[in-house]
């Protein structure tokens, strides 16, 4: 049977295209233009070629930021994914506690990002914050404003607190969609808890976990507000992630050329990862 092709439907896309042109394509073009020039303000530009790209790609500072970003993303994924699944497994599937658990889990996701950063900043202060004060009271020398290890600990703890709920909710939705017949069959076969998890729940969760993984990866790779409010990238540069470094170069130093080049490199990394993840997701769906 011949499939009918009606390309007139593309006309309906034109308004969206116009909107995207103004809020994405034109700014992107401007960034590309800035990335090959130098400016000292007053709307005057001087050709610089691809030197900013080379500077950024060869700079220790960029490598360090990218490394910190990779470590941060890998750390939170390694914690949030298994923790989210574990919490979802312990949540009730029926009864009045379901709603309570779901609301409690959703609460951190409803808090604005800058508020999360401010909350944890106060919470972890060594003198007046509950977390900082308690850790010092039990013998730890904790001060996230001075010690890089403590800053990383607080940063990761904050992200885990804020975003594990997303994994929990997605995993819970996946678990809820498994028919009872699977569990009944497993019971007849005498399967234990581990066997049920390994051979029934985990395979059935694979699609939602892929989505959760991708969402958390992309969000954490672009994270800015929470670490900026919590630590400002410090102490020193120890928690300066890529986005914070970019803003420092663009607004702090007003180096628009290097900042534009770094923006494009950052954008290309995210674009590549997005494509890889999209491909993985759609392949999984096809299989």
């Amino acid at each position, binding site marked *: 049977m011949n499939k009918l092709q009606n390309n007139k439907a593309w006309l309906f896309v034109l308004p969206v295209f116009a909107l995207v042109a103004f809020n994405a394509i034109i700014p992107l073009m401007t960034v*590309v233009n800035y990335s*090959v*020039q130098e400016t000292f303000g007053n*709307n005057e*530009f001087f050709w610089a070629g691809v030197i900013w790209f080379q500077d950024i*790609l060869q700079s220790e500072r960029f490598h360090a930021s990218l490394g910190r970003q990779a470590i941060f993303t890998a750390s939170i994924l390694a914690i949030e994914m298994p923790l989210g699944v574990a919490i979802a497994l312990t949540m009730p599937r029926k009864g009045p506690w379901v709603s309570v658990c779901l609301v409690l889990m959703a609460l951190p996701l409803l808090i604005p990002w800058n508020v999360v950063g401010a909350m944890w900043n106060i919470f972890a202060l060594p003198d007046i914050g509950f977390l900082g004060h308690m850790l010092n009271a039990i013998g730890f020398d904790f001060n996230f404003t001075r010690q890089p290890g403590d800053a990383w600990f607080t940063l990761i703890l904050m992200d885990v607190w804020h975003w594990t709920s997303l994994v929990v909710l997605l995993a819970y939705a996946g678990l809820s969609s498994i028919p009872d017949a699977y569990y009944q069959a497993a019971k007849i076969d005498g399967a234990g808890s581990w066997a049920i998890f390994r051979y029934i729940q985990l395979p059935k969760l694979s699609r939602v976990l892929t989505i959760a993984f991708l969402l958390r990866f992309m969000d954490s790779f672009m994270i800015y507000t929470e670490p900026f409010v919590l630590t400002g990238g410090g102490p020193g540069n120890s928690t300066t992630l890529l986005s914070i470094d970019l803003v420092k170069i663009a607004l702090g130093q007003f180096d628009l050329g290097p900042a534009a080049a770094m923006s494009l490199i950052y954008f290309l990394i995210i674009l*590549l990862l997005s494509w890889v993840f999209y*491909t993985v997701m759609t392949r999984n769906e096809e299989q």
Partner: protein
Amino acid sequence: MGLSWMAWTWPTAAFFIFIACCLGTMTMLELRNPGGAPRDGVLGLTTTRGDRLFIWLLGSAFIFLAWLGLVSTLLWAPLAIAIVYGVLVFRYV
């Protein structure tokens, strides 16, 4: 209001004209042969011609970045590599 705030240069304008030409060509091909000509390539992916263009452009960007980061700012060699890469992508991916 002019476009001076966008800081246009001829090389960047040429780059965007090239991208626009690629998209225009894809649109023309789609109108003449609808469906995107999907096929299974060497990567085990089902790709349309639009996917292949995207893979080529994105891969080429990383070829240029790798050259800039590791070798020099002379870009004729990565341009040649990107063209060869493009031929391979449109032929086999």
